[in-house]
């Protein structure tokens, strides 16, 4: 039995495109980006924004979670060219004037991480979870935070941090 793996075909030239991505409120120009580049690889390897992490590169772990037009998505599942013209928010864009975002502060206050690898994705997912109105109680938080895996299993503290951030953000209006 013989198998042929159709993964690569050297006779097809690499296709590139120059584009502008709006990341954390700033337009970032990318010259001749390989079209196959995911938004995650683009952020990390081309724009120096290494906060979003590559865990599985298959949409299974949530470590690469960013906001796209305000909605949380897995950056590994988006082609950078397909994000052209959209607003991208990464963990680097959350703090303002040197002050951590309330969700970031709550993660610290609740000790909601151990190794920290999943934390940028957890924080952005938590922010979206709260803004979607899905932080009502522990069960709801666990369901709507289920797209972010934590191999250190800091889940109780993460759920606690989401509740803390939600109530602080509500108080702050």
């Amino acid at each position, binding site marked *: 039995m013989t198998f042929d793996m159709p993964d690569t075909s050297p006779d097809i030239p690499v*296709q590139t495109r120059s584009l502008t991505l709006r990341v954390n409120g700033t337009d970032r120009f990318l010259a001749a980006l390989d079209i196959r580049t995911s938004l995650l690889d683009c952020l990390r390897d081309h724009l120096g924004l290494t906060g979003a992490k590559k865990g599985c590169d298959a949409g299974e772990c949530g470590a690469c979670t960013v906001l796209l037009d305000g909605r949380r998505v897995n950056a590994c599942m988006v*082609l950078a060219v397909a994000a052209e013209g959209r607003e991208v928010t990464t963990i680097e864009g959350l703090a303002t004037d040197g002050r951590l975002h309330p969700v970031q502060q709550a993660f610290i206050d609740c000790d909601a991480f151990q190794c920290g690898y999943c934390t940028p994705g957890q924080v952005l997912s938590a922010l979206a979870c709260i803004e*979607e109105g899905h932080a009502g109680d522990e069960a709801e938080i666990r369901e709507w935070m289920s797209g972010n895996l934590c191999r250190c299993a800091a889940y109780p503290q993460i759920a606690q941090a989401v509740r803390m951030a939600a109530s602080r953000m509500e108080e702050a209006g």
Partner: protein
Amino acid sequence: MQPFSYARAASVEDATAASLPGTLFLAGGTELLNWLRLGIAAPRHLVDISRIPDLDRIEALPAGADGKAGLRIGATVRLNEAARHEAVARDYPVLAQAILQSASPQLRNLATIGGNPVQRTRCAYFRSDAPVPCNKRRPGSGCAALDGLNERHAIFGWTEDCVATQPSDPATALAALDAVIVTEAAEGGRRIPARAFHTLPDERPEGHNVLRAGELVTAIELPAPAPHSAYVKVRERASYEYAIVSAAATVEHDGAVLTRVRLALGSVAMRPWRLDEAEAALAGLPLGSSRIAQVLDEAFRAARPLSRNAYKVPLARNAALRAIETAARMP
């Protein structure tokens, strides 16, 4: 990953006309990017349909002969948007529940209602990096799951050439609802019943669904509302996991007697598995009757488990019963 070109379609006509050989359509990308990375697909061209105006709209259909209006969901409506839509949540709870139990919040913000049924089997041999026998991946190479790790595989409709299952939760709900998958293509569009959208191995073991090259899903049409409907998903963890089995049920009753039941099972075959004979036998039974379980027992005598998945037969039978009971209790 083989290089490919990328273009954005401005309209459905633009997309189907631009569909050269080797073209795949890109919408949410949550499945397509995995295909590209695994080598399951190697397109020459991607046509991005996610910005086509009006393809992301949800609108009421004109009322049918029975005076009841259905709903048209544009193909690029994101799963979360579809589940959250007032008319979907109110009139088609089985679909809203199926959507919200699929994937993760992040993936549902990307994945579309038109793209979701196009997802392929999760069979580990089909998705393998290593070149193992798989008639879907490499036609003619055999089926490693037939006598291999087939705990999660089919109990209905399989052949020795393929024992895979179609994993989509929304597609299972759509099959129970008798939804129609609307397509366009350069040579003309089609209206495909959701329950006949996927391809069984006795038709074409290498097949996944009936879409032709260059054919684009443009909308999902739901017929009359099914407010008494429910989706039961059984899985190994509470969330963010594929089904072992699932059951979608729609029920109509007069307060005492079932007048119409539709049942589709998920993750038991390469297509959502409707139980036509059981549906016919359930009509006329009193609500809460012990005969309901007996009818299901009879229906599941047709199940053919594999070497490692006999446990799925009672699991699916119980899920079906629970889906009927839950649907009947819906207000």
